[in-house]
């Protein structure tokens, strides 16, 4: 049983398109995150939600919009995709409200390629 799952696993699309990546966790955690990992393996946090409320919003283009319908789901919608958006996007979750000090559980990643 997968703890943190993401769909799709691979996503190839054209510049200018709009796409969504879905994330679900069945751990009963209160906090969920989105990370972007670039081609050099550098991981950067994008967003963090605690009980459906945004608590971390790093400097990312407003083309990226997270949506949390409930605390088990945190989806990432990207408008007007650009070449530089090509990366691996990881979803993660952690137990409590002190999110930045807690162990995070990562999904398998979504590999996005923008052509």
């Amino acid at each position: 049983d997968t703890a943190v799952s993401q769909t799709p696993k691979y996503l190839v699309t054209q510049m200018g398109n709009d796409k969504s990546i879905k994330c679900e966790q069945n751990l009963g955690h209160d906090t969920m995150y989105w990370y972007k990992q670039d081609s050099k393996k550098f991981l950067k946090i994008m967003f963090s939600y605690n009980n459906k409320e945004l608590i971390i919003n790093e400097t990312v283009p407003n083309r990226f919009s997270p949506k949390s319908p409930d605390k088990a789901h945190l989806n990432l919608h990207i408008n007007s995709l650009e070449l530089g958006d090509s990366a691996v996007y990881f979803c993660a979750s952690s137990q409590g409200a002190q999110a930045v000090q807690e162990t995070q559980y990562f999904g398998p990643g979504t590999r996005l390629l923008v052509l």
Partner: protein
Amino acid sequence: AQSVTQLDSHVSVSEGTPVLLRCNYSSSYSPSLFWYVQHPNKGLQLLLKYTSAATLVKGINGFEAEFKKSETSFHLTKPSAHMSDAAEYFCVVSDMHDMRFGAGTRLTVKP
């Protein structure tokens, strides 16, 4: 503000020899420190974490790390490398307000 520096982008060892992956950090607060491992085409998995308890932390798969406040270091070690240890390793520092990932160290294990 805080930061984390992984001193080696790539470490290569022979199977059965010790592993040392170096991490230095800076933080204005008492930080929590983590090591995560990422195998090819996989998500990150926690190896171990330090949260102000014992300074020598033991993790999974025989890894351990020692928190040295005077040196602002949290180096990851393993006495004997196994082929399955080949992966990317990330050091992470976090406090009440922020968390930062290091750039990663790629560990190669030669037969």
